[in-house]
Each structure stands twice: as structure tokens, then as C-alpha cells.
């Protein structure tokens, strides 16, 4: 009965109201078979909300949807999956205590005579994961995987859904270049088989590569639609942000000859084998970029520098004085602070307010004679919010903020301490262009104020755009230290390759 025109998904007037926020305000969307529609927009524009409504995860306040011509109103994810619509959630949703294979199979366990067929379960999982270039094995616990590995498991889980429409909400946020390539190859292959996609990403360069059409959201409304993928990024940015963003990266100011060495790392070696013999210096006002492919050991190295992991040999000194490494408090006392890569689990107490989160590492600063007053806490929160342009009232729960704003809070909570060394691990993962520019400005400001800055990122453009020098890590060892002029994408990639 369905006419050719009605094939695929049609969304009409999607509206979602949260107490205090209108997340979506009457958005239309159409996805045809075999097509990849990219959904763009700033943090909080409503991309995930729209995705969730389509996948039955959230209920719209108002919406009219048809799927292959029939009315479609999923009450829960089960109904969406049954209809052939699957979602890879922006926040990774895995079971840490179960194996990779179990996680991929969750909800769709292969059975033999009514009982779980564990061998088939493993085989199916690895078939998908191999296509994505997964490095682990089927029996590994998910909690042992790197973020990238977890992301790949999440993707494999969705690929096994047998969906005809798959929504990928920022699937590459945690992936490096090689993994991203593998994913895109898989996506292209599936498109040829008639599968359609909704693709959400903040990486505009990716959009050019794979999008058939582009829909841009702003403040919950559709502001632009392009019927092709290779749209000029600058145009997209101005559509997303509502103004033109003239530059992403602040200028990198040359370092004075006499800038003193602040952070000195010598012979740092993990007793668990994550990295060995890592040595480097960072001078006052300098930004050191750390590049490498996923799983190279960058996170482990910077965590060791920040005394977040025990079981490490070697020395870390600040201003010539060695830092004890028993507890993160040791590093903090020496002036080293870490903005961790996983803001939800390491950066924020999500059910506490923004103000409380900012106050946490600044308890002495908000105390008067050992007493914490509500006033100073609010005051500090306002100061930090203003400085970084955080959207959200100090008393709101951290969990109610968009990712970009959360990231700003994670960085902001350390600024008041005036750290001598600040380490940022993947500081803009999942962050929109506008917010990214703001975070880059903050990074440059800190350097200008005399801090030694270390930026770890899988986004090569980011490393090259910010850093005075780039250190390349592969397999837990330093493969090269490049000056700003030496650091071309080709050279970095060459050194990073295993």
C-alpha cells in the first residue's frame, strides 16, 4: 500500500518541553532509505532529544511520525527496535561487569534449543567488531576497555540490531582516525544495502565525507537544510551558531627564550606496562600537545603525572621540586591539575549542583575561618560561569547541563586555584564549535598567564592549532617531539602509526 514517497521516516512538528526548557520546538525531519542525514547543531540544540524521540527512548510532548507510510509512535525502545529503528546513544550505555560479547548481544541473545548459544554470541560480536577494527577480544570485560573500545562495542551492538534506520549520536567522539575510517567504511557498505542513517556529530570534516543531506538545528528549531553533504563548513558553523565564528583557535604566542621550565617529567614508567620511560618538560606559558592514536597510552601518562594512578616509577617535578605521587592531592598541592577525559565519571558529581561542583576543589577559597558560606559558593560559581560562559544557574544539578557546559564547569572548577600546570585530556570531546572556541580561548589565556599547559587530544587539528610543541605517543613510548613548525599532520601521523 505504501507509495514510494512514503518510504522511510517522516517526522512532523516534533516538540519536547522539559520543565524550564523547550528542547524541541516543532522540528520536521525526513530520512529516505539508503540515505545518511546529518544532524548538526550547538550543544543543547536538541539533536539527542530528537534522536531519542525517534528511537522511543523519550516521549515527545507533541509529534507525528510515520515509518514506511504507517503511523509510528514507539512507547519504548523495544517498539522502535521491533520496527527496525536503532540508536547508538551519545552517552555510552554498556554493562561494565559483562564481557564484550555479552554487551553486543544484550537483549538479542542467540539461542540454541532455548538456551544461550555462547559460541554464536561471541562469533556474531566479533564479526561486527572486526569490521570496525576493534583491538580487544570477545571475552574481555567492558570495564577493561579504553573509551574507544567501548565506543566500538556500542556501535557493534547497534549494527547487530538488524535495523533499517540507525541513529548514530556522536559515534566518533571517542574514536581516532583509523577507527573512524573503519566505521565509515561499514556505514557506506550498509547504505548500499539500503540502510538509512541519522548521523549526529560535531566534527564538521566528517560530515563532508559521508552526509547525503544536512539538517541544522538551533535552539530546538530547524534553521537550515542542505540536500547535499559537501557544504562549506564556515556556512554550517554560522548556521549553527547564528553568527559567524571568525576563528576557532586563538593565535599561539611565541614563547620567550627565558620562560622557565615548570613541569619536568623524567623516566615515567607504568608498572602495569601502559607506558615506559616517558620524559618531557613544559615551560611557563607553553602549550604542549600530546598526540597519538587511540590506546597509545596518553591518558595513562597524564593521569600518572597528576598522581591519579599509583604503580608508576620515575619523577615528576614542578619548579624543580619533586612531586609525591600517592594521591591526586599531592599533585594538586604542587600546582598540577587534571581535567579528565571522562567528565561524567571523573569530572562532575552529576547529582550535585553546579555551584557545589565548582566549590569542591576550592573548599579553602570558599571558607571563612573553616566555615563554608552559601554566599561565597554562589559567588565563585557565578565568577567561573561568567568567565567561561557557562549556561545554567549555579543551583541547577550538573546533570541538567549540556555536554559543552559540563565541560566548561570541569575546566572552570580548577581555574580559581591558579594552577601552575594544567592538563586537559580530550577537552572538547562532544563539544560544539562555539563552545570549543571558548574553551580554546581559556586554554590560551591560562598559558598567557604563565601556566604550563598540556593538551591531550585525538583531534589532530586541535593539537596542531593550540600547541607550541607536539609530543607523539605510540604504544606507551614517546615517538617524537615536534616543534610547531615541524608538526604537520603527515609527520604526526607517521610517528603515531604503530
Amino acid at each position: 500500500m505504501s507509495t514510494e514517497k512514503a518510504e522511510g521516516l517522516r517526522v512532523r512538528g516534533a516538540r519536547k518541553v522539559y520543565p524550564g526548557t523547550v528542547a524541541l520546538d516543532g522540528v520536521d525531519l525526513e530520512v529516505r532509505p539508503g540515505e545518511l542525514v546529518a544532524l548538526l547543531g550547538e550543544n543543547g540544540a536538541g539533536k539527542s532529544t530528537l534522536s531519542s524521540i525517534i528511537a522511543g527512548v523519550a516521549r515527545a510532548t507533541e509529534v507525528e511520525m510515520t515509518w514506511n507510510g504507517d503511523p509510528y509512535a514507539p512507547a519504548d525502545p523495544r517498539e522502535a527496535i521491533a520496527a527496525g529503528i536503532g540508536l547508538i546513544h551519545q552517552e555510552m550505555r554498556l554493562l561494565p561487569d559483562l564481557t564484550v560479547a555479552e554487551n553486543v548481544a544484550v537483549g538479542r541473545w542467540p539461542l540454541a534449543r532455548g538456551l544461550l548459544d555462547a559460541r554464536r554470541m561471541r562469533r556474531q560480536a566479533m564479526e561486527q567488531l572486526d569490521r570496525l577494527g576493534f583491538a580487544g577480544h570477545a571475552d574481555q570485560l567492558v570495564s577493561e576497555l579504553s573509551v574507544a573500545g567501548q565506543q566500538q562495542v556500542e556501535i557493534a551492538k547497534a549494527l547487530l540490531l538488524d535495523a533499517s534506520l540507525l541513529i548514530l549520536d556522536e559515534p566518533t567522539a571517542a574514536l581516532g582516525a583509523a577507527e573512524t575510517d573503519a566505521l565509515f567504511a561499514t556505514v557506506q557498505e550498509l547504505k548500499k544495502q539500503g540502510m538509512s542513517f541519522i548521523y549526529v556529530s560535531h566534527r564538521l570534516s566528517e560530515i563532508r565525507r559521508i552526509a547525503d543531506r544536512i539538517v541544522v538545528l538551533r535552539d530546538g528549531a530547524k534553521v537550515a537544510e542542505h540536500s547535499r553533504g559537501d557544504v562549506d563548513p564556515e556556512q554550517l558553523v554560522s548556521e549553527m551558531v547564528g553568527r559567524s565564528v571568525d576563528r576557532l583557535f586563538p593565535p599561539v604566542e611565541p614563547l620567550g627564550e627565558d620562560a622557565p621550565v615548570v613541569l619536568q617529567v623524567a623516566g615515567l614508567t607504568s608498572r602495569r606496562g601502559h607506558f615506559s620511560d616517558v620524559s618531557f618538560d613544559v615551560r611557563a606559558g607553553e602549550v604542549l600537545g600530546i598526540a597519538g592514536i587511540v590506546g597509545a597510552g596518553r591518558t595513562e601518562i597524564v593521569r600518572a603525572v597528576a598522581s591519579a594512578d599509583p604503580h608508576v616509577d620515575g619523577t615528576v617535578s614542578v619548579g624543580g621540586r619533586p612531586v609525591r605521587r600517592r594521591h591526586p592531592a599531592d599533585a594538586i598541592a604542587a600546582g598540577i591539575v587534571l581535567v579528565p577525559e571522562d567528565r561524567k565519571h571523573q569530572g562532575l558529581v552529576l547529582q550535585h549542583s553546579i555551584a557545589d561542583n565548582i566549590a569542591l576543589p576550592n573548599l579553602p577559597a570558599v571558607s571563612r575561618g573553616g566555615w563554608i558560606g552559601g554566599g561565597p559558593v554562589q559567588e565563585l560559581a557565578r565568577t567561573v560561569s561568567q568567565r567561561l560562559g557557562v549556561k545554567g544557574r549555579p543551583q541547577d544539578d550538573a546533570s541538567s547541563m549540556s555536554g559543552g557546559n559540563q565541560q566548561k564547569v570541569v575546566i572552570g572548577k580548577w581555574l580559581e586555584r591558579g594552577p601552575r600546570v594544567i592538563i586537559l585530556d580530550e577537552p572538547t570531546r562532544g563539544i560544539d564549535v562555539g563552545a570549543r572556541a571558548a574553551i580554546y580561548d581559556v586554554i590560551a589565556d591560562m598559558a598567557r598567564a604563565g601556566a604550563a599547559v598540556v593538551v591531550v587530544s585525538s583531534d589532530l587539528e586541535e593539537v596542531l592549532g593550540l600547541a607550541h610543541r607536539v609530543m607523539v605517543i605510540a604504544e606507551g613510548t614517546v615517538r617524537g617531539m615536534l616543534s610547531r613548525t615541524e608538526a604537520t599532520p603527515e609527520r604526526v601521523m607517521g610517528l603515531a602509526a604503530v
Partner: protein
Amino acid sequence: MSTKPFTSPTQTALIRGAGSTSGPTRSPLARMLSGSGGALIGLIVLFTIFAVTTPRFFSANNLINVVDQVTVIGVLAIGATAVIITGGIDLSVGSVLALSTMVLGWLSDEGGVPMGVAMVAAVAVGALAGLLNGLGVTVAGLPPFIATLAMMSICRGLANLVTDGQQIVGYPEWFYSLASNRYLGFFSVTAIVFILLAIAATVILRYRPAGRKIYAIGGSAEVARLAGIKVRSVTTWVYVTAGALAGVGAIILASRLDSSQPSAGTGYELDVIAAVVIGGASLSGGTGRISGTVIGVLIIGVLRNGLNLLGVSPFLQQIVIGLVIAGAVIVDVLRRRRTH
């Protein structure tokens, strides 16, 4: 606990309790070690100590006694394992057991109902209490600790009201012999029921979709929901099952005591939970296995039995039991730390 990719295991374990690994799809040896390794070591150590120190311990007869002595707790612990895997807890099992046993006695004694029907009713009453627990958790949104704490109090009151606190005696002889006659030269009917239930639960948890769903829910209710699992209904069923098993436990207890007492099962909930956790389950959900629970139950049973045989004074026994519970779980924690 949700995905914390770069958390050191020690730190995560610190507050919420030891996280646990339970990959059901590992090699048999790894599986054995990961599921209940710590507890198994504890059990073997206890066995050895008692076998050496008290000659009567290591006799077939005594070991069968131990099995008989743990049947009630064991049956309850099977249900509790499932509840704990979902991330819940059931404090009401002892009281639900008391209510079921009183219903059994009242129906068969006062009510003149045939024994078979009364037994079904006892299980049904347990299941009903479990259903209310489950709905309290899934529909009313109560924390499991509170829903089942309330049910614990309610069922104890009801159990007492049935006969105004009196015990009920006068079961038929065949009923008493279910727990006391040892068929096949070894096991009583009640012990066989326990063993069969344990096997069935192992198979369901490990190889049936229902079991896998329970693990998924405990790992993360949200992940399970996104994967299309009916979290509320599965969770409710788990509580219903735990309640029904308390009903089965009530029948076993009545048979064992040849009577029904409203004070039955007082304090069992803590024994049961201790057994499940000693067996390797984590109270934060997502892990646990029946084999481990059975070992946990045996540890508690062997310990009590051995200390009695040794003639250790009851006050000292309490101290030793506390130390062994802590010790058994510490062994498990250390073993896991090493594997990480």
C-alpha cells in the same frame, strides 16, 4: 555502577563495594575462579580446619546433616541471588517465610484443607508478598531496601495475627518425613528440592534469556531498557520468584520442625544476604551466580556445624562467624584486585 573506563578498580570498589567480574562466557576454569573463587577457597580452608580438629566432622552422615541444615537458607538464597543481581535487596524473606508457614499450618490444621492445596497456597502467599515487593520497587519507585523492609514488618505482623502468636502443630506423618527420611541412602526430599532448585536457577540465570536480562538490568537498568528489555516486568518477576521461594522455604521449615511458628525465619535475611555476597555477588548489582551462593550458604552452614561439633561457646561463635564472613569476602576482594 555505570561505565567508568579509567577508574582504578580499587577506588571504585572503595565506596560501593567490591565490583565483580562475572563473564558467563569465559573458559570453565576462569569462570569457576571469577564467579566464586574466593568463596571456594574459604570453604576448602574451613573444611580442612574442621576435618583436622574434630573427627566427627568429616563423616558422610555429618555432611548430609549440613546439607539438611542449610536447605531453608539455601532455598531463600537462590531467590536472593536473583534479586541482588538486579541490584536490589530483599529483607523480607524471613518474614514472608513466617507468613507462608503460618498460612500452611492454618489452612491444613484449622481450615481442613488438603495438605497439597495448603502447600500451593503457602507458595502463592509468598509469591504475592514478592509481587507487592516488586511493584513497590518498580511502580511505586521505592528503594528495594525500604520496600522489603516495610514488607518484612508487615508480614511478621500478619504471621503473628494468623493465630495470635501461637504455633501450629499436627502435620501428617508423611509431611514430616519429607525433611527427615533420607531417600537414596542420602538425601531427604527437601534437600533434593533444594538441589534441583539450585540447578534450575543456574541454568536459567546462565543460559536463558530471562537470566541474561536479569544481569543486564543489574548492570544498568537504563542500558537494559534501551536494549528493549521490559525492566519493570522482569524486575517484578524476580521479586515474585524470591517470594515464592520463601514459600517453598516455609514448607521445608514446617516439615523440618513438624510445626509452624510465627517467629520462624527471624534474622534469616542477613544470613541469606551474607551467603550471596560471600558467594561473589555485588550488592550494586550485575554480578553473582548460584554456584557462588551455594558455596556461601555452605560456608555459613559448615561454620555453624563445625563450631558446634567443636563445642565452641555461642558467644565466641558469633565472633568467629563475623571474622569468617569478613575473611571470606576479603579473600575474594584480594583475588580480584590481583586479576585486575
